[in-house]
């Protein structure tokens, strides 16, 4: 295959632009794109080798292309010192030829995202607060063209100590291996493919200062488990994910706390921290992107959650969702429905009667969201949005007998109206107003700054 200097320059520029996308991209689409980049990088390395040969043969014939190439390489791959940044000086020996990895991309990429929020309850302004909600540092290290390590370390609420509210946690730590052109495998601590937010939770990826309730209270984003996962991308636009992982621990349920009422699964997740693993869970997700601008998908998760612990009746946690996103023109429309259940809660709750927070049998929620790219200039984009949510963290309880069975929780109705203002590809300013239909005391105004790269 022969390439002209122009085509090389274009390819290099495309590669550089692609590499500037968020390095923690996790969606199947982005994953597929990353693999294509790999293939493109391989081709580019081959072309560069050919170009070096041409230079040696034709003197200054390739000078312009070499200059362009060097500049692009510096932008796209600042980490390793690249041989082609140096002027061409005679025919390089075989040993002096840049390696493919040196030419194509850095082996290690630093990533980060974070958000700082201001929240002011409209009926209790004295409770207004600013919170460095999360700050995440991550990296990807590509061990070879088919193998990479992805890790993210998160600090929540700025300061983590015995006397402060923050916490430090590993959000992801997994190895991914490309098994073929359309198949990859992951092992380690990874995000479960559920809903649309969990795997794409950076502040630049969602509307509103705070993450939506359905994908935090029902789907416990950021939800990660330790396990193995296969990811397949088919030519027809289908991405299929599935695997085995750790699951929840119902023994962590604290009936005296309100945590379980805020997020039933958030109260019993394990996050790879000495996670009980007597039983493993199965999960799967299917997403279809066969039509440009359209995403339709769903996911399911199910796993035993008692792990044969003493005094703990057996139980199973299941969660599934359906989601869709359509982006016609300036519009960005999306919806998620998620529903979870915990089995055998009558036995689980029998010893907890009278406590404030018993284990619900079922919990669910949905939202509809519409955003419109109202204005853009240069790399500024202004997108107002509206989101309607309905969710219930305790829709049903198992019958414990008269006077002992808790009343089902009310369904909260949240309307969020706001705007996202993108500054370039990596910074977002946000503002919104949230109105709560059930507990209006929670009404609030939010401002936020987020970044992601």
């Amino acid at each position: 295959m022969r390439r002209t200097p122009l085509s090389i320059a274009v390819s290099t520029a495309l590669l550089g632009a692609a590499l500037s996308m968020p390095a923690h991209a996790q969606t199947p689409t982005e994953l597929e794109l990353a693999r294509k980049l790999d293939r493109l990088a391989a081709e580019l390395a081959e072309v560069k080798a050919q170009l070096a040969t041409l230079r040696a043969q034709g003197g200054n014939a390739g000078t312009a292309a070499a200059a362009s190439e060097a500049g692009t390489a510096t932008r796209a791959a600042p980490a390793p010192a690249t041989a082609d940044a140096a002027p061409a000086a005679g025919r390089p020996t075989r040993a002096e030829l840049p390696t493919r990895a040196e030419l194509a991309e850095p082996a290690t990429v630093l990533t980060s995202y974070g958000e700082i929020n201001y929240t002011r309850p409209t009926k209790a302004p004295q409770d207004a607060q600013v919170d460095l909600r999360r700050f995440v540092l991550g990296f990807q290290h590509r061990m070879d063209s088919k193998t990479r390590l992805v890790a993210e370390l998160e600090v929540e609420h700025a300061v983590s100590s015995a006397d402060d509210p923050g916490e430090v946690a590993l959000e992801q730590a997994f190895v991914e291996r490309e098994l073929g052109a359309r198949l990859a495998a992951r092992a380690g601590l990874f995000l479960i493919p559920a809903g649309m937010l969990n795997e794409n939770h950076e502040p630049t990826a969602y509307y509103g200062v705070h993450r939506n309730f359905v994908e935090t209270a029902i789907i416990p984003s950021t939800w990660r488990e330790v396990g193995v996962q296969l990811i397949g991308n088919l030519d027809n636009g289908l991405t299929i994910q599935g695997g085995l992982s750790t699951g929840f621990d119902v023994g962590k349920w604290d009936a005296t706390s309100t945590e379980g009422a805020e997020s039933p699964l958030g109260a019993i997740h394990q996050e790879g921290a000495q996670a009980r693993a007597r039983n493993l869970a199965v999960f799967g997700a299917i997403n279809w992107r066969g039509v440009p601008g359209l995403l339709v998908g769903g996911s399911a998760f199910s796993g035993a959650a008692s792990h044969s612990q003493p005094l703990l009746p057996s139980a199973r946690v299941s969660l599934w969702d359906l989601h869709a996103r359509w982006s016609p023109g300036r519009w960005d429309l999306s919806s998620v429905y998620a529903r979870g259940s915990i089995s055998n809660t009558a036995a689980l709750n029998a010893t907890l009667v009278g406590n404030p927070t018993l284990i619900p049998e079922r919990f669910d929620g949905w939202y509809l969201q519409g955003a419109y790219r109202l204005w853009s200039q240069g790399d500024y984009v202004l997108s107002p949005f509206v989101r309607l949510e309905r969710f219930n963290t305790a829709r049903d309880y198992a019958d414990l007998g008269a006077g002992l069975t808790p009343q089902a929780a009310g369904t909260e109705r949240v309307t969020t109206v706001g705007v996202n203002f993108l500054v370039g590809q990596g910074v977002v300013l946000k503002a919104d107003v949230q109105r709560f239909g059930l507990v209006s005391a929670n009404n609030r105004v939010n401002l936020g700054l987020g970044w992601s790269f």
Partner: protein
Amino acid sequence: MPSLPPIPLAGIRRPRHALLSLATALAACGSGESALAPAPGTNTVQLSAAAALGEKIFRDPGLSASGRQSCASCHDPDNAHAPANALAGQPGGALLDQQGGRQAPSIRYLDTNRAFRFDDEGTPTGGFFWDGRAASLQQQAGEPFLNPREMANPGKAEVVAKLARASYEAEFRALYGNEVFADVDGAFQRMTLALQQYQLEDAGFHAYTSKYDEFLRGRAKLSEQELRGLALFNDPSKGNCAACHPSGRGSDGSLPLFTDFSYDALGVPRNPELQQNADPAFYDLGLCARPAGDLAARTDLCGAFKVPSLRNVARRHTFFHNGRFRALKEALTFYVQRDTDPRKWYPLDASGQPVKFDDLPPAYRANVNTSEAPYDRKPGDAPALSDSEVDDVVAFLDTLSDDYQP
């Protein structure tokens, strides 16, 4: 009911003796949880030599000045290791004519307790005796031998001399050396160590054989009334008992101990049956008045006493540190009506007003817990529990007695 996982047999672990027992105790402390979830009927394990010796010491009245009082006299194994009578204070002294100043508590379910401390939030926690002054079962076991109101030995030498004449003297020598009695302090220390070992090893001190234990194991069902009582016990707006007496399975799968090992000032009425209370200037101040004086400056702790386990509470004949009440229902009713009907519990002053918390000097009455349910009420309010609800809670507490037979 679902099938339950196998529960570790306590007996399998017993022979590992004190080290393991103390290790598991340390692991579970402060949570109000037991270290294990043993199956019932495990009291068939052979005691170690030290524990077997400890049992003989425990039951030996010859070690008291009177010759008629043993550990078992006040901690009767047939009465949940608590007094078998309804006296306000147990008789002691060389002539058994001295009355104890506080009610003798049950010494069951103490194997996971640990030394007194202030936890991360500054809450006083742990320790043995009503004021937590002993740091271990061993230290606790030694004090009654020398207390003039109890076994009343003048000193350790007299106790050791009695040990040297005991029927099990040869066993003591065999275990601790032929010359052990020559060292008074050493012999006394080994005696209390044997007593501690007995309490750690003998499953009778932590049997977990109540109906409620079987309920938690999924092998028994509570009656409707008992379930109602459990719900009222747990409910923060009703009994709120579980706030200090946790009733749920521990996060590690352990059975609950019905105490969080903390301290509270309840304002229990003065008990005229205690002879020490004949002196109107005398007040039993509890935590701030420990003999060592280490908490004397903490006047905010005056009036606070240890929260006891409620296991076997239905088998007790007197309640609270001063033995003021003799019926469980009366004790529960006091909890819920203390603030709604204080006239029922406290004497009236010259102006006809009830003197609340009369067993504390006026300066310390503000230490009494009045902020949480069921105390957070005023005269005329409805009690947190009605009379029938108190009956329900009593029915539930009945399920906490060991030796349940279906």
